[in-house]
């Protein structure tokens, strides 16, 4: 049967570029955090795609397996698992910066904050 081939990688790149676009083009800081999240998911997706083996199964040993079961690669899973948790911690840090900026300037738009900064 015809597999997806490189389709997964291309979709990963599409997602990544959408995240990058949000990061560059949007001035709203919460939106930027959302863009960063999209970007992060795409990277995770990239690693997990590399880990998949055709016909394989999740890397949890099947009871009574004597070497005939094909497992997907567990190493990228480990890396991404911790990456997700670290990602949320960083998101929280970014969001707390946003909250502080809003308390200080009353705005979370990049250009408005920049303008106020120039006035002072």
């Amino acid at each position, binding site marked *: 049967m015809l597999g997806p081939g490189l389709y997964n990688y291309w979709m990963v790149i599409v997602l990544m570029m959408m995240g990058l676009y949000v990061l560059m083009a949007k001035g709203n800081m919460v939106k930027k955090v959302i863009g960063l999240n999209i970007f992060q998911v795409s990277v995770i997706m990239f690693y997990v795609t590399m880990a998949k083996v055709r*016909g394989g199964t*999740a890397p949890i040993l099947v009871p009574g397996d004597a070497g005939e079961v094909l497992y997907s690669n567990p190493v990228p899973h*480990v890396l991404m*698992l911790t990456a997700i948790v670290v990602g949320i911690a960083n998101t929280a840090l970014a969001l707390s910066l946003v909250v502080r900026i809003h308390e200080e300037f009353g705005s979370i738009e990049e250009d408005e904050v920049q303008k106020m900064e120039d006035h002072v």
Partner: protein
Amino acid sequence: MLNLVDVLLFFFLAVTALGLVRLRDLFAATMLLSLFSLLSAGLFIVMDAVDVAITEAAVGAGISTMLLLATLAITKRREKAPRREVELVPLMVVLVVGGALVWGTLEMPEYGDPDAPSQTSPMTRHFLEKSRDEVGAPNIVTSILASYRGYDTFGEATVIFTAAVGALMLLGGRRPKDARLTGSVLQPHNRQSLAGAGADEMQPKELHLNRILEVATKSLVPFIMMFGLYVQFHGDYGPGGGFQAGVIFATGVALYALVFGLTPAQRVLPPRLLEALLALGVFLFGAIGLWTMVLGGNFLEYGVLSDGPLHGQHLGILLVELAVGITVAAVMLALFFLFAGRGFCGPQRKR
């Protein structure tokens, strides 16, 4: 069939991401982000990454959404209208970078290729073939996470600890003096004391949000906690472990706080206690490592913890996962309390 699911889910993911880029209502965008996260977790399952899926579901759809919503509740709901519909320079950059990346993928092995370098690498083979005899946990992901790469996981625990400390320092201190304050969504009494007259009439509505919701929450929370413990201690055998269990546990408490208000939840888990637990988890992790050194092994070499190496590994993984679980639960809850308890704070400077 699985390939079809893979293709369709990826397509949905792209459509959702496009919606995320276009939407200017940040609230709607946040909800769409939780949908995005659910979809991606579905994809992880198709690609056999069950542990990643369970983490993404708990973190992306749960905690991350809650933090974003809490941030929006205390800042602004809408994005400013852009000057142009499409910014040309970023678009060009994105197209060029994307094109270069696509060109780069042409050399990649196909999806699911069993002969790809990452599958045939000696490390991968070693983990897949030897972990049963060396570590003994059926879940290879847990074996690698807690045992083979234990030092790395220690680093991750430290990173989230540091991030939480950073957030606590940014938001935990006193507010600016002349700021206009309104109470947090989850703390009605706060509103009364800060907003002054007219706040009293809001009280009853706030406190009794919804009787049905209260009863359902009250009966569900214990089971959620139980389930968190199951995920924590079943991590050797199935998908799960400290990271996931910590988030699930935190979600249980967060659900309670959402329905009953912050104060009752904080009576059970005061912020001070959370701060202590935050440090305790990381400390426990490091202490286990040092203890194995005292016993004559390397840092985090669990084999020396008990009589047989397998038994020692089992004990070590259990303890380390517990340490991670404590850290993650404390971090997530501390962050949730921080954001949810903040309350709206208006601009300090005049425009």
